[in-house]
């Protein structure tokens, strides 16, 4: 090939030379290059070419030709008015698609906004503390003996914090605190003290703590009254939060509250020495009553909190550490290990560890009894759902506006002829999208509050919505921008690309095939997402149903749990309740067979070959326990009434674990418990004692004297709800007679079992809502497209009818294409949904199988919904009299 002029020089020339001069200039340069090439050779010619090109860097060549018809500045008021007018006219003209788009976008934006509020709220927990990065919770790994596993625990033995502060140099500030549960008494002169009930566990926040004064060095509070330096140094001192102070003492000035007396645990008299402001931002530290830790040794509290206890851990005992600036957790690892070696030479081991403050709200491994854990995967799932819903809405917009673009092609043509540039057309269409999005955002702002209150059960407590906060404003702005670009960019490129000469002649000037492919792909995408949601809903629903209906191994209906405050009087109450007519049976127990609370202990069996020792769950109750819950005895008998543990009953799993081939073999064998031997007198069939996430393990049942909770089986045979209520009322009367000072509370066992699946219930609600929204938006898009296609093919349908096509064949014709897409979506969605749901089900020890018919059902549902949506339009189109559609041109 002949040598060509240097390409880079050519490119440079093309980039700077005015377009109207380029041809001649480049031509001349090329001609000169030819001559130079033949006279001087390629090297010299190339150099000269470069030189010549650079020579054209002069004003005349750079200056662009001005046109006689200058484009007005894009956002001149006149053009803006024009854009607004055409936009409004277009929106009004295509009412259906405008409404579909608006509705879809509103739903999408609302979903995004609500989910943003929830996730932002959860993620902002305890992020407001100054030096939050330096604050850690003292946690640990505990091990009961050499063979057992390491358990992460969020709490620590009472003696550890003080020892750590002394023995680990450079650890900074350590503050230990202990949650206590107590009612509060405020002395009221000579009259009876004012009483505030203790919190209801799991419902209300933990508020009372006994704490080291260093707590206020780690967490910064604003002091409203009292001296922060001395407020908690002495015994019997108390710091209250402002809200709590007013609750206890009414609306008096804070200074007057200082020095007043408050009584905890009926006997611990403390005096208010300080008042701090409550935190306004989300926090897990919900404490409002801070009792000085010096009080422990000086009062009744020492019976409950043993400060020198090393080898037992209670969830009420907590400690926080504020490391010095620049210190890292890793530098303490070896010191912690040494600490553990020194203090735990025996079986029980405890190794301290540090948990970052930011981890507190999310890590379920470290339990405590005040923080509320947020499930991080659920939050991420939520964000994904929000994104997908917005995406589906944007896809609707893209589909409908590209489908209708041919109708706006004339406008584009005219605008171009009148001198509009492509850039300004793109901006115009994007602006239109932004306008629509803005309306959607405004509508969703109105919707957010009602939605938040409607979904209170799945939103975190304390979540409020403030339109005028900076973050919300920023988020809304981001959403408007993102949605406008997502939904509007592609259509605006398509619309602005039309060639005016073609569009004005009545052709669309577009390759029809490409457009339709994109639209089809997007519909497939939409339906894939919808189908994944549908399949998810079906499987979650099936699993929940399975958990509700599966035989638990015991009866849980019409059983009421009551927790008397003392064991002795509890027996009196039990006796009273037994005499009521509506009560079938009353059992005294530790806990019901199934629930959040359970206890595991170590049992030993001297087997034939070697002793078998293992952790066994204890179900403690009197002789009424097994008959009340109707646990099925597969061998032997129930244990008989006694004052202490004499005989035990085990479950089938334990019998199997001990190596008995037949259940009868287990009878009259002896089990070693705390050094004493007890005979097995019966074997019960396995029953669930924890949620379905856990496998059924070995269990033993027996009676121990310190059981004090009551389980009451109400007789329901032939009784109406009102009679049950009457029975409950008479139980309450008995309670009042026995415990006049305590509030009567009861729970139905069914409810507390259902509470085990709270998270799953929330997931289910969430998936249901997401499915509903996704399907709704997708179908509206489909509806819009079907309407459009039917409209476009009016003539074709008319001709077909004239030539003898039946209504059915035309409906088939119009529906076929869409249904094909739904089927493809099903094929794509099935494996994805299968994988996702398998992951979800992995958490359950007892679960449903994912069966093929679930996918088939989802497919049928989707096809049905799609068909239903399309049929509106296709039947309407097929029924039109061809005379009408063919008459007008």
């Amino acid at each position: 090939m002949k040598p060509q002029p240097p390409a880079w020089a050519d490119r440079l020339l093309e980039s700077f030379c005015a377009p109207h001069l380029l041809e001649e200039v480049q031509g001349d340069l090329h001609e000169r290059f030819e001559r130079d090439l033949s006279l001087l050779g390629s090297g010299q010619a190339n150099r000269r070419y470069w030189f010549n090109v650079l020579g054209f860097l002069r004003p005349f060549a750079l200056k662009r030709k001005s046109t006689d018809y200058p484009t007005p500045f894009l956002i001149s008021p006149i053009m803006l008015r024009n854009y607004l007018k055409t936009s409004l006219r277009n929106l009004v003209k295509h009412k259906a698609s405008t409404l579909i788009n608006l509705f879809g976008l509103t739903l999408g934006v609302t979903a995004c906004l609500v989910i943003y509020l929830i996730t932002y709220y959860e993620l902002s927990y305890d992020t407001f503390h100054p030096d939050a990065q330096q604050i850690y919770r003292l946690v640990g790994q505990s091990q009961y003996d050499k063979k057992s596993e390491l358990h992460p625990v969020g709490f620590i033995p009472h003696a550890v914090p003080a020892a750590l502060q002394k023995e680990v140099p450079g650890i900074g500030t350590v503050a230990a605190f202990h949650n206590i549960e107590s009612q509060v008494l405020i002395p009221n002169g000579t009259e009876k003290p004012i009483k505030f009930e203790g919190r209801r566990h799991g419902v209300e926040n933990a508020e009372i703590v006994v704490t080291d004064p260093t707590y206020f060095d780690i967490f910064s509070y604003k002091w409203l009254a009292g001296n922060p330096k001395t407020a908690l140094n002495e015994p019997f001192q108390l710091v209250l939060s402002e809200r709590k102070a007013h609750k206890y003492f009414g609306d008096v000035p804070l200074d007057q509250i200082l020095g007043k007396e408050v009584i905890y645990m009926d006997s611990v008299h403390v005096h208010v020495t300080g008042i701090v402001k409550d935190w306004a931002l989300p926090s897990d530290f919900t404490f409002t009553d801070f009792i000085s830790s010096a009080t422990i040794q000086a009062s009744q509290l020492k019976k409950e909190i043993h400060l020198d206890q090393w080898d037992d851990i209670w969830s009420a005992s907590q400690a926080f550490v504020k490391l010095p600036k620049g210190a890292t957790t890793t530098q303490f690892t070896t010191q912690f290990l040494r600490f553990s070696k020194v203090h735990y030479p025996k079986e029980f081991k405890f190794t301290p560890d540090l948990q970052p403050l930011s981890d507190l709200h999310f890590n379920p491994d470290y339990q405590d009894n005040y923080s509320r854990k947020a499930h991080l995967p659920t939050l991420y799932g939520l964000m994904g759902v929000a994104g997908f819903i917005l995406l589906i809405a944007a896809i609707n917009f893209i589909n409908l506006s590209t489908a209708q673009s041919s109708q706006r092609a004339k406008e584009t043509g005219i605008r171009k002829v009148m001198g509009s540039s492509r850039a300004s057309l793109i901006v115009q269409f994007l602006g239109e999208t932004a306008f629509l999005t803005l309306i959607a955002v405004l509508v969703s702002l109105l919707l957010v509050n009602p939605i938040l209150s409607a979904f209170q059960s799945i939103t975190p407590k304390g979540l409020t919505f403030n339109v005028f906060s900076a973050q919300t404003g920023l988020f809304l702005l981001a959403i408007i921008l993102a949605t406008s670009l997502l939904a509007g960019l592609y259509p605006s490129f398509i619309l602005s690309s039309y060639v005016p000469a073609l569009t004005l002649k009545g052709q669309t000037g577009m390759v029809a095939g490409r457009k339709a492919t994109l639209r089809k792909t997007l519909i497939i995408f939409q339906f894939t997402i919808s189908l994944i949601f549908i399949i998810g809903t079906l499987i979650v629903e099936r699993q929940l149903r399975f958990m509700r209906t599966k035989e638990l191994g015991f009866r849980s209906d019409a059983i009421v749990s009551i927790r008397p405050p003392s064991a002795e009087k509890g027996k009196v109450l039990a006796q009273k309740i037994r005499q009521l007519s509506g009560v079938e049976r009353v059992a005294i127990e530790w806990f019901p067979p199934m629930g959040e609370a359970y206890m595991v202990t170590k049992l030993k069996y001297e087997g034939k070959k070697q002793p078998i020792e293992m952790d066994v769950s204890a179900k403690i109750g009197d002789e009424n326990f097994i008959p009340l819950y109707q646990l099925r005895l597969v061998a032997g008998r129930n244990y008989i009434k006694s004052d202490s543990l004499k005989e035990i009953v085990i479950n089938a799993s334990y019998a199997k674990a001990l190596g008995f081939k037949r259940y009868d073999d287990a009878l009259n064998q002896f089990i070693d418990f705390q050094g004493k031997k007890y005979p097995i007198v019966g074997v019960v069939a396995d029953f669930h004692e924890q949620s379905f996430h856990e496998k059924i393990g070995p269990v033993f049942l027996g009676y121990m004297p310190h059981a004090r909770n009551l389980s009451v089986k109400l007789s329901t045979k032939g009784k109406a709800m009102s009679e049950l209520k009457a029975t409950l009322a008479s139980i309450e009367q008995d309670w009042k007679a026995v415990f006049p000072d305590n509030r009567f509370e009861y729970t139905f066992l069914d409810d507390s079992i259902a509470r085990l699946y709270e998270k799953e219930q929330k997931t289910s609600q969430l998936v249901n809502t997401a499915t509903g929204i996704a399907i709704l938006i997708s179908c509206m898009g489909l509806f819009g497209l079907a309407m459009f296609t039917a409209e476009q093919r009016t003539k074709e349908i008319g001709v077909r009818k004239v030539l003898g096509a039946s209504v059915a064949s035309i409906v088939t014709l119009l529906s076929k294409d869409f249904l094909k897409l739904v089927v493809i979506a099903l094929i794509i969605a099935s494996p994805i949904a299968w994988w996702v749901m398998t992951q979800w089900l992995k958490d359950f020890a007892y679960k449903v199988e994912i069966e093929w018919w679930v996918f088939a059902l989802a497919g049928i549902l989707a096809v049905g919904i799609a068909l239903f949506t399309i049929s509106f339009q296709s039947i309407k189109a097929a029924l039109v009299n061809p005379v009408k559609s063919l008459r007008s041109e």
Partner: protein
Amino acid sequence: MKRTYLGEFEEVVLLTVAVLHESAYGVAITDELDRQTGRSVSISAVHAALHRLEEKGMLTSHMGDSTAERGGRRKRLFTVTALGSRTLHDIRAIRDQLWNAISPNALPAISI
């Protein structure tokens, strides 16, 4: 008499366009200038001059044929307008008039 000012280079270019008659375009003019006057000028300088002359109305142009050596690009062919012709004539007349006014011995003799 008020006339459009024409620089010396412009005048030479304008004359060269007239010399080349119907086939005056960038490269040809550059070459012709080189041949006739021995002045080696860059193409860009010639283009700039042509552009200016066109703006002044002394030249008019149209796009000509494309040739292979230009990679299929067309040439812009220039022709002198009436105004250009008039200006050239004016300049020449003034020169002649001045030459005629010089007395025979006023200029020092130069030997060739």
